[in-house]
């Protein structure tokens, strides 16, 4: 195949132009801007827009932007506008780290909202701890972290399971089949679950882990059939949730006798699996889209108006939403020249806000959030029905499964 020199030069020029066009951007963005200067408060928004976890992180990005837009429309924070700097870490922990550095060191943001997976949070943690910046992490996770540079607004195991597990034992029976994706979050949750089962007289008939993204569950379903548990305690994530539910239904199993009880199945997954496959199974979370409260109705309406009528809100996007408002509340307490991450952290301790799920509070000891756990059952119309609501908000105990350790304001303390 012959190529004329002209074509070649043209292509080379195009490539060169692209390469050249890319670089100036770095220079402009890194001009030395001080923090919160000139009526601008810079925050980073670090959720994947491409790659595998974009499935859910896209909605987290949207919820955060919605909150920022609402705050700015209402006049910003004492007159200063929040300027979101959005980066796409592409579902890769190393890119998360790179973008986090850029946001913290390069752009000098006063806070960054980000991460869904624990792997990405752990990858960016050194950046925030080393640079003494503040990371707002909205996702339910396995606990066992006590960083003073992270505000955790997602649920930890004790908040998700303390009411859920005994309720399940009561309603359905003692035999639990534990199935999760193969990484730390499901393993920790199962760890905690086993402790609760021991306490309440439950029994583990099997504990199994499938690779992330796995979607072939026939063997698992065969095993379920042969062990006949009362409850299938599921901590698979992402599209594994959808596959598991659909194949459960296709296999003809009955959710009234052997329901799946999940910590991760949200409105997102329910929309993708279809009402038929979702109906009858249970989820425990602090928030569901159907929750009745004026704040939630406003939130859902605003979200749909901004992003589309077919969109759903779920317990992680709700956390993104309210954490941005908590940020605003904390910054309001500071003088304009004092807006630095450590000050924001100190200001947010003990702050409360009426979130769509109810009133929430940042616990000063461990920087986690007091939440209102709920138990809901999915319906065939694709939404949940809330069956049990906590009467009181639950204190977050990230080290609940490890009685020898407790997270305090000074850091992690070993109790003898």
């Amino acid at each position, binding site marked *: 195949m012959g190529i004329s020199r002209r074509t070649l030069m043209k292509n080379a020029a195009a490539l060169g132009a692209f390469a050249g066009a890319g670089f100036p951007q770095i220079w402009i963005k890194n001009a030395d801007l001080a923090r919160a200067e000139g009526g601008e408060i810079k925050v980073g928004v670090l959720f994947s827009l491409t790659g595998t976890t974009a*499935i859910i992180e896209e909605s987290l990005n949207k919820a955060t932007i919605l909150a920022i837009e609402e705050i700015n429309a209402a006049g910003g924070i004492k007159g200063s506008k929040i300027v979101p700097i959005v980066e796409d870490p592409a579902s890769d922990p190393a890119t998360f780290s790179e973008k986090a550095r850029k946001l913290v060191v390069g752009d000098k943001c006063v806070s960054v909202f980000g991460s869904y997976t624990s792997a990405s949070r752990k990858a960016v943690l050194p950046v925030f701890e080393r640079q003494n910046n503040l990371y707002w992490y909205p996702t339910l996770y396995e606990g066992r972290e006590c960083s003073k540079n992270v505000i955790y607004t997602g649920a930890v195991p004790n908040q998700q399971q303390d009411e859920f597990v005994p309720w399940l034992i009561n309603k359905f029976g003692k035999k639990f089949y534990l199935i999760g994706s193969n990484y730390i979050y499901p393993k920790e949750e199962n760890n905690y679950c086993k402790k609760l089962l021991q306490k309440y007289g439950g029994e583990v008939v099997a504990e199994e882990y499938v690779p992330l993204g796995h*979607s072939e569950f026939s*063997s*698992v379903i065969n095993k379920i059939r042969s062990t006949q548990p009362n409850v299938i305690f599921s901590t698979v994530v992402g599209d594994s949730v959808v596959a598991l539910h659909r194949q459960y239904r*296709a*296999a003809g199993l009955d959710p009234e006798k052997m329901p799946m009880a999940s910590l991760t199945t949200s409105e997102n997954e329910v929309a*993708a699996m*279809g009402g*038929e496959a979702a109906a009858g199974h249970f989820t425990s979370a602090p928030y569901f889209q159907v929750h009745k409260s004026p704040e939630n109705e406003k939130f859902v309406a605003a979200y749909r108006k901004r992003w589309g009528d077919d969109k759903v809100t779920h317990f992680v996007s709700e956390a993104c939403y309210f954490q941005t408002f908590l940020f605003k509340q904390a910054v309001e307490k500071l003088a304009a020249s004092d807006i630095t991450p450590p000050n924001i952290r100190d200001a947010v301790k003990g702050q409360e806000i009426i979130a769509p799920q109810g009133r929430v509070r940042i616990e000063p000891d461990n920087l986690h959030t007091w939440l209102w756990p709920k138990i809901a059952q999915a319906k065939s119309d694709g939404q949940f029905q809330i069956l049990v609501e906590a009467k009181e908000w639950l204190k977050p105990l990230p080290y609940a499964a490890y009685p020898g350790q407790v997270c305090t304001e000074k850091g992690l303390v070993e109790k003898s």
Partner: protein
Amino acid sequence: MTAAGKLLQAAVSYGDWRVDQFIEQIITGLSIGSILLLVAMGLSIIYGSMGIINLAHGEFVMLGAYTAWLLQSHFGLGLLASLVPIFVVVAAVGWIIERYVLSLLNNRPLDTILATWGVGIMLQQSVRLMVGSELRYVQMPPSLSDSTEVLGLSVSSYRVFLFFVAIALFAVTWLLMNRTTVGMKLRAIMQDRSVAASFGINAKRVYALTFAYGAGLAGLAGALVSPLKSVSPDMGTGYVVDAFMVVVLGGVQSLAGTVASAFFLGELSGAIAFLQNDTVAKAIVLLAIVVLIRFRPEGLFTTRVRA
């Protein structure tokens, strides 16, 4: 003794083994195998006949699934009715890619890996930009949503359906390859392209058709599999690796080999997953393939050793 036989022995020594479970395992394996076959068949044709390593194969699967979703959500078309349009759409995409990208890479087999990978990224991202990253739902045909009795066991009707579809598609493909003029032309080109050209066979056209056919098959696979799983822009990446393993194991240029290895791998991974867990199953299957390629690179089922 075959691997399946050894596994059976181990399983029996576990004690507490019932015939029911055994049959259940066989059926599970057949189901996994039929899905593997659906996905791998297109790849087998493309690689076997053209030597093209199509890393965008997973994206063709994904396109088929998204087309099913689109037809369902915007036109209310059920899955079974959409199958023909899906085949046509994805085949068309395949044809375009072959014509404008791959035909320029005639004698650079390893560069086709790179080019198809780039194309795959573009397809994936285009879908993401046009439709969004969320998981999408394709409804299972209501007529197949229940379970049927097979050998005394309750099995999902849809899985049974998939099994027969996979076999049917294999039969159709085999007939096309071996009993039609186009198939004969393709086989001629596979043997020796220049000699075939001297007989007046337009290799370019045949290649384009073949690639389109393989892509169309992949699209069908994606659509057929989606009611059991979900639809997302990156759903295809997992399938490429699995599909390749099937093709390599079965022997390049052997369609029957692909069928046999698909079911073999299906049984193997199903059995190991049942005895251990899915992570171990995946690792063991991969290792087994590595060992197998080393000792028999022509695959399990090729009778002639091709250089």
